[in-house]
């Protein structure tokens, strides 16, 4: 594992450190969905926005429009409208009664407030960890910097379901850390318990800070060092340079990270379920309402959750729209970055970086330990007293287990590739058309599945396509292999779209125009000019969607069929049968698969012409 992990993390870093440079980080700079768009740069000059780009030949454009329209209509609008309409109904009549009743409940209000509060705090904590860490790894050089910089993005690969279990065995009150503290300080009882707000924030900070770390890192490596230098030479102090020059240039990356973190935290479910203690979050209330059989309440709460998430989107994008100069300002400037290679600062930075990266590895190591521990033997000891290979033997001797991996791999690959192709369709339509309202609407619609909890996406799809209807005709998706790839596609395509769209924004239009003037057809220009330039960002987004789809559970469990049983269901099933070790073993194998995919993606990225 050691040998692999080295390259794997290297590639992970490639993925995160490199791709967002043109990819994810740039998503923030794309104001297609911004309330108002501004095209002024910091120095007041107009950004190079083409006003008179001749329309692409009608037919391909029309086809694209048709594809995008149909997918959005059937995948997003129709099923979700269903949900909204249901929440607006009471005994067959239209009314706002459901909302009135729910918002009058103290408990629901409390859940809304704590959901938002947790998410805001999560954003702050993640920023507090991720941004300094990114500065550390970008600005200092020390031995094995790349390795540790890569390790810092590790929480991204911790599989859901078993990730939280690993966390409990590490940080829980009977976990390894607590037991170590107990034996050092001779404590009678566990020194802490993993419950409530601190536990939630700890877990959220751990799993979500990479958004900040990765995006800031990419932003830092891209900002114009000449500007900072100019500031210094004009007599500005370090702090002033940081706040007035460096941070403003980073704004797009920071806003993108904040948005991703906020939405992910709003939709966080397993953490509040497992160690939320008495904290009520909206996702948990939805789950409890469903369990009690109160479906209307669950639906209405879902709509509220989605509205909050999407308002955050509008809010953040409004803000980022005011800071749109990074790309223009750095045009032609050398991407130099000063690294600090000597001095005591370097030693401190190195020690801190190494220590922190090792801390981050602990949950992953815990999962590995659990997967090798003999069941029932690990009770009051710090580490398991006896080990076994039985858990791996169980899953590797099982033909169904192989099938499960194959299923997940093929479905996630299908969904990811489909999302990639679809992203190009969308991007071709909306890139550089940011002024038009319908483009904003389009971008907004695309993000809706990302803002909804997975359960809702699955249930709405199952209900919309579970019976013949006027819009779907006799087309029935429920009960077929295809339902899961479709669900994965819908849930995770927003990531790919954002990434591709941002990369396309970055491409200098002059290149395309040059191609045109040389008589190249649109497809020639696409394959020879655009595609090579946006390739790294596209691969990064696709890989992210692929990796997340591999571990998807909440939607899968409601719609999977025997022929497409995914890994997450196998893990949940082992957990239900009390085979914690086997579940952990599945998790470890899943991480190994993700590692391999990262390496393959690294290759793919380098393959661009």
């Amino acid at each position, binding site marked *: 594992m050691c040998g692999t992990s080295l390259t794997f993390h290297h590639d992970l870093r490639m993925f995160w450190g490199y791709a967002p440079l043109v990819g994810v980080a740039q998503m923030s700079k794309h104001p297609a969905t911004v309330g108002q768009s501004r095209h002024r740069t910091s120095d007041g000059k107009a950004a190079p926005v083409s006003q008179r780009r001749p329309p692409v030949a009608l037919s391909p454009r029309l086809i694209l429009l048709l594809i995008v329209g149909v997918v959005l209509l059937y995948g997003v609008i129709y099923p979700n409208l269903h949900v909204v309409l249901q929440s607006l109904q009471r005994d067959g009549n239209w009314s706002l009664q459901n909302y009135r009743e729910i918002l009058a409940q103290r*408990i629901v209000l409390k859940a809304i407030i704590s959901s938002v509060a947790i998410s805001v705090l999560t954003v702050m904590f993640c920023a507090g960890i991720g941004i300094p860490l990114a500065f550390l790894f970008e600005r200092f050089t020390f031995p094995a910097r790349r390795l540790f910089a890569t390790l810092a993005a590790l929480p991204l690969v911790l599989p859901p379901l078993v990730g939280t*279990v690993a966390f*409990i065995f590490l940080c*829980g*009150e*009977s976990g390894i850390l607590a037991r170590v503290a107990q034996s050092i300080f001779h404590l009678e009882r566990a020194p802490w318990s993993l*419950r409530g707000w601190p536990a939630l924030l700890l877990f959220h900070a751990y799993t979500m800070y990479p958004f900040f770390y990765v995006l800031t890192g990419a932003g830092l490596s891209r900002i114009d060092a000449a500007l900072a230098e100019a500031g210094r030479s004009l007599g500005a102090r370090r702090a002033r340079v940081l706040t007035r020059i460096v941070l403003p240039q980073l704004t797009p990356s920071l806003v993108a990270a904040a948005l991703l973190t906020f939405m992910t935290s709003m939709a966080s479910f397993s953490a509040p*379920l*497992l160690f939320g*203690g*008495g904290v009520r979050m909206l996702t948990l209330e939805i789950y*409890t309402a469903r*369990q*009690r*059989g*109160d479906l209307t309440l669950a639906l209405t709460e879902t709509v509220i959750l989605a509205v909050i998430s999407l308002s955050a989107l509008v809010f953040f994008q409004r803000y980022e729209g005011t800071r749109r100069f990074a790309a223009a300002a750095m045009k032609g400037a050398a991407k130099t970055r000063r690294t600090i290679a000597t001095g005591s600062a370097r030693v401190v930075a190195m020690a801190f970086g190494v220590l922190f990266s090792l801390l981050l590895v602990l949950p992953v190591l815990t999962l590995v330990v659990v997967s090798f521990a003999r*069941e*029932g*033997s*690990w*009770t*009051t000891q710090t580490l398991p007293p006896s080990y076994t290979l039985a858990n791996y033997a169980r899953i590797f001797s099982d033909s*169904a287990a192989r*099938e499960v991996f*194959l*299923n997940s*791999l*093929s*479905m996630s*690959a*299908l969904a990811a*590739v489909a999302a*990639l192709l679809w992203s190009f369709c969308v991007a071709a339509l909306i890139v550089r058309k940011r002024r038009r309202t319908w483009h904003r609407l389009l971008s907004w619609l695309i993000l809706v599945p990302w803002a909804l909890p997975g359960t809702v996406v699955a*249930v709405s799809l*199952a*209900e919309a396509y*579970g*019976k013949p209807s006027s819009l779907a005709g006799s087309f*029935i998706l*429920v*009960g077929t*292999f295809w339902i899961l790839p479709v669900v994965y596609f819908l849930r995770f395509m927003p990531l790919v779209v954002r990434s591709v769209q941002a990369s396309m924004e970055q491409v200098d239009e002059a290149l395309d125009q040059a191609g045109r003037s040389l008589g190249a057809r649109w497809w020639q220009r696409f394959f020879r000019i655009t*595609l090579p330039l946006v390739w790294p960002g596209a691969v990064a987004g696709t890989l992210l969607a692929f990796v997340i789809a591999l571990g998807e559970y909440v939607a899968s469990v*409601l*719609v*999977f069929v*025997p*022929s*497409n*049983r995914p890994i997450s*269901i196998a893990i949940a*099933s082992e957990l*239900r*049968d*009390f085979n*914690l070790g086997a579940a952990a073993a599945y998790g470890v194998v899943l991480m190994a698969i993700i590692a391999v995919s990262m390496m393959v993606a690294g290759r*793919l990225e380098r*393959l*661009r*012409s």
Partner: protein
Amino acid sequence: MRAAKLLLTIACFSALLFSCNRSGSSTNKLLIYTPHGQDMLRDFVAQYKTQHPQVTVEFLDMGSREILERVRAERNRPQADLWWGAAHTTFQTAAEENLLAPYRPTWNANVPESSRDANDNWYGTYQTPEVIVYNSDAVKAEEAPKDWDDVLDPKWRDKVLIRNPNPSDSMRAIFGAMIWRFYKDAGTPDKGYEWLRRLDANVHEYTADGTLLMQKLVRREGLITLWNLPDVWIYKEQKGFPIAYNFPASGTPVITDGIAIVRGAQHEAEAKRFYEFVTTSEALVLAAKKYYRVPVRTDIDRSQLPAWMNEKVNAMPLDWNVLRKQSGEWLRYWDTEIRDHNKQ
């Protein structure tokens, strides 16, 4: 251009992977939804296939509440043929929502009135008594609680672990029974709430699922819990966990685990055949010995069963219909007004 070729290759590769995946269609198919776990299902399916080799039997393993949600979502186009495993309360809810098809098995006379639906929508297969469980390394047998009210003793303050009752049939039954003890005389749940409030004072944590509950129990985050007997035996015998149990002296709720045909099943005849196959006395004895399921049928040769299954269970008389109808409201009250109130 290379990039484009690569893309194409990936697309082809995924298509290939996918095409290997499709299982051939067969006219004799059977799809079972079940929470009984893969090992048990595979065992029974393999045996069934030796008798009926032409049938493709598939199953989906989910929790019983997830099954209910799925069957509900699929009501317009049912996928499942057979639903094997869920508490009778869940089946009763499904029956009332018209999700089940009636079927009267050949052994219907050998099931107690209380363990079957009057309209044949479901029949009981296994019994699940609830017990008081404790960590036998940390608690001496004579000190362990012997009855429900013993769990409220202040000496267990912060030592009791309870699984979150919302998604768990066992915990719903226990909470329901505790309220019912008072509700049946008083007609209001207030005294039952009081009981749960006193329990809450002793509770160290409400865990999210049964697996974590048992882990935390042997890791001594708490020492006492309330849980069902078959699971306790699985942990004791298969996994060697240091746990022991007491039957509550004043009686305990006994859940009936059932089986039912899904309404609108596409392979109803096959479903009925499998239904009968897994409920013969041989099949029930096998499930008892290997998978710790206590049979419901009264005509089983009880000497073949593990000794613990023949222990006298003092079943608490409960009106399950009242419990089922009220438990949503009771749980909502517990959730908002009682849970974790001792921690603030």
